[in-house]
């Protein structure tokens, strides 16, 4: 006799009801968490609004991607939708859009259309590891690595060179994989800075000092801007320039008419929302675990990073934390974000196993608390943030969707896992206004995939960057020979 048949039907019904109630409760809780997470405790200066799409009349070149399953990037999925691109920007996304005459039409029937992936850690793609002078003057738009990265679905990445230590530092830029287009490569300079915690007492004091000076300066300049100055143009004005101007390009700041105190330029940009601060909460290793930090307990480092967030009044980005999953609510409360490798298996400290060590469910826990999560690939000899040619597929940047898939393995909602490669990755890089989703006014970085974006079997068929087709699978040698 089959035991299944013996179970009374009413017990099944009761169980279903209980489950339903539990789900509803969990959903409410999660919603609350999300709401709490999205809010920021102190209102910082509002970053510039998202760019508006161009006037249709001024567009020279239209491209339309038609008929695919369009994942906009904010969670919406449009089956059979159209993505209309005007020059280098997304113009409109929707069903039954009118396509202007003369547009190049790319058919995506039976395919999946997504925003291009933003790699928050990548090396050796179009730029050398360190550059004297401006990044754009060292860019190589014909680097073969660009094609391999496009084949992996990466359309832009956060370039890092150097890093700060006890204060924010480092050279960064959002680099587009705009093959052959030198001008289109370095899209936005200095979109992020980095530093590390824990800080020593002296360092912490120093940081607080600097932040204090920065806040003073910020208040002064804002006050001056609010009260119009009668001084003539010859006298250096007191109004700070448009926030977006500052720091574009050269790491050395052009002195503004009212110069910020030494050492506060980066902090000011962070506080104004012009750049993200990444904090690496590396712990003192207690045992040789896996993972970048090396240690199993970086809660102190994380907490201090959150203190820095509160001090600055903006969310920060936790860079590869091990125990962020233990502090999800606190992280959410500061509006901070997390970049992590879901496969991190740093073991827990045996004396405190519940609150230490990595957790593959970290992405889920953080996401449910309302913390945006971006995923990265493992580091190490055969992995690493490169589109390698000698390594082990699945461990490097050749298959970014695998990293998001591991987040799903840990329980993350599959519909949200794609964001860890796109919009939330763009958030972590501080560039969510220009990339990361298919929304009007954003850069037209689009992928046409041959299947489920998170499937290990899916390949990029076509990739567009800045509105131009820069990769086609059947025209490049890499995966041309592989067909479904």
């Amino acid at each position, binding site marked *: 006799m089959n035991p299944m048949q013996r179970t009374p039907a009413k017990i099944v019904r009761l169980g279903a009801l209980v489950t339903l109630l539990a789900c509803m409760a969990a959903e409410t809780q999660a919603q609350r968490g999300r709401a709490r997470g999205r809010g920021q405790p102190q209102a910082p200066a509002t970053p510039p609004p998202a760019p508006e799409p161009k006037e249709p009349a001024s567009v020279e070149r239209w491209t339309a991607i038609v008929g695919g399953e369009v994942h906009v990037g904010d969670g919406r999925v449009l089956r059979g939708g159209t993505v209309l691109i005007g020059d280098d920007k997304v113009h409109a996304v929707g069903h039954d859009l009118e396509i202007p005459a003369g547009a190049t039409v790319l058919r995506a029937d039976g395919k999946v259309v997504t925003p291009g992936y933003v790699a928050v850690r990548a090396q050796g793609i179009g730029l050398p590891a360190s550059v*004297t002078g401006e990044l754009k003057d060292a860019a190589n738009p014909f680097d073969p690595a660009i094609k391999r990265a496009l084949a992996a679905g990466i359309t832009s990445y956060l370039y890092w060179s150097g890093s700060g230590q006890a204060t924010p530092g480092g050279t960064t830029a959002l680099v587009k994989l705009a093959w052959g287009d*030198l*001008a289109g490569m370095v899209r936005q300079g200095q979109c992020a800075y980095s530093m590390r915690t824990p800080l020593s007492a002296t360092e912490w004091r120093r940081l607080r000092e600097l932040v204090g000076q920065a806040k003073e300066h910020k208040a002064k300049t804002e006050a001056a801007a609010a009260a119009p100055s009668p001084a003539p143009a010859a006298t250096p004005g007191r109004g700070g320039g448009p926030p977006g101007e500052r720091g574009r390009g050269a790491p050395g700041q052009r002195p503004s008419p009212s110069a910020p105190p030494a050492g506060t330029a980066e902090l000011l940009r962070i506080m104004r929302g012009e750049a993200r601060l990444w904090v690496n909460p590396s712990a003192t290793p207690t045992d040789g675990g896996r993972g970048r930090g090396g240690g199993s307990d970086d809660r102190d480092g994380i907490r201090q990073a959150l203190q820095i967030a509160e001090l600055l009044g903006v969310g920060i980005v936790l860079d590869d934390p091990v125990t962020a999953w233990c502090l999800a609510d606190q992280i959410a409360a500061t509006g901070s974000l997390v970049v992590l490798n879901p496969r991190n298996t740093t073991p827990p400290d045996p004396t405190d196993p519940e609150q230490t060590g990595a957790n593959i469910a970290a992405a889920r826990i953080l996401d449910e608390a309302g913390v945006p999560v971006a995923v990265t690939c493992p580091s190490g000899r055969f992995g690493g943030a490169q589109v390698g040619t000698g390594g082990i597929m699945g461990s490097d940047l050749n298959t970014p969707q695998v990293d998001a898939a591991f987040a799903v393995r840990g329980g993350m909602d599959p519909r949200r896992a794609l964001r860890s490669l796109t919009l939330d990755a763009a958030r972590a890089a501080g560039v969510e206004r220009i990339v990361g989703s298919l929304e009007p006014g954003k850069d037209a970085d689009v992928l046409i995939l041959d299947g489920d974006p998170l499937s290990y079997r899916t390949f990029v068929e076509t990739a567009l960057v800045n509105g131009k087709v820069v990769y086609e699978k059947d025209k490049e040698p890499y995966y041309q020979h592989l067909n479904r």
Partner: protein
Amino acid sequence: MMRSLCVAAALAALSVPSSAQAPATSARGLAIRNARVLPISGPPIERATVLVRNGKIERVSSDIAVPPGYEVVDAAGGTLMPGAVLAYGHTGLGAGGAREERPNQFTRGGGRGRRGRGAPSPQGGAENESGELALDRLYARQEVFQELLRDGVTTIGVAPTGTGLPGQGGVVRPAGDDVAAMTVVRSAFLAIAPVNDTRTKTLIQRALDDGKRNLDRRRRRGPEQRSEGGRAEGTPPAEQKPAEKPAENPGEKPPEKPAENAPEARGGDAAQGPRGGQQQQEPDPAAEAIMQLLEGKTRAFVQIDSAAQMLHWDEVSKNHSFPTVFVARRHASQGSQGFFDVVLDHIKRRKAIVLLTPELSTIPNTEYQVNMPARLHAAGIEIGFLLADRGRALSAARTQLMELVRAGLPADVALRGITLTPARALGIDGTIGSIEPGKTANLLLWSGDPLDPLAKLQRVWLEGNEVEADPR
């Protein structure tokens, strides 16, 4: 026959090794008979006679009587072609050769796993040294010139070493006691060696922008004050010399404010105007050289090796137009920065000659080779070839050219690429690079077709004088 041998022997006995003294143009005539002549400027002429007198080619024809008193050389059916022109190198500079230039510092794959290799600071390259002349650094009595000459290289372009704006290059003959005796053209081109970094790009851009501004200013002053061009010998800028100012411009113009569009120079040489204000009389050779270029009185030899570098160059130079020759010394190894065939329009727009090493390139990450010279030629771009700047440069190039021809490059393009085209690039094609009446008698006699591997170089004439054969 005996007579010509005696004459030849006498001549040989009388002629001294060309390195010992300035070449004497032969007052007597020379007749090379029974040769297959490759004029380069026209189709081959079979069984021709070439008459040479006073160091120049007098006549070329398949049917001439040899005038009396001419030494006769029987080519025995061999092939006569113009001497090879080495358009760009550092022969004779520094101790025994060139100061090595920094290669383009972009390394593919940047810091992949290794310590990142940042941009090496170039030697020099921080300033506009356009006023320097390569020939001022040349040391005349060096083995390398003999070697090159014996191998068939009869004209040598010498470029200054360094990156950025290292100076002006000149043209020498590989024979002579001193630089003056060797000099053919003291300043033939302005060398530009861009590097993909901000400092060098800014230097060049600024120099060009300043040059344009200076030119505009000079033009506004009137034609009588415009300096006579010449070979960038640093004529004093007219506007700064009160003595030369015509009466209708009393006094000086107010000093121009630098703030407007000449921000503080970062490693670049400043414009003429603001520097030193109105009292300075000294010529600024560097700025003069740039102005010469912008006026079209000289040409720029720009070292570009890849498509990426071309795009960077475009950024720097897009507001200016001047005669341009692209020099690609390392193009075959720079595949990971893109080949020239993706930037053809950039080359065509400038009507530039491209001088490149005669090599096949390999597409990165593959074993596929491409014949870039053939591709450029097929696209309508005029190409010439770079020879090594020492040693048996022509012999080495010949082997490479054979491979290029086998891979699809037309043979006549190959030979023109080592003769007339580099001469055109240097601006000396009026006298050098082809076998035509009136041109300099730099001649090579081969036992067969020059691109036949079995053919040997039998005789070399430099300006009508036969060169002592290679002892080997």
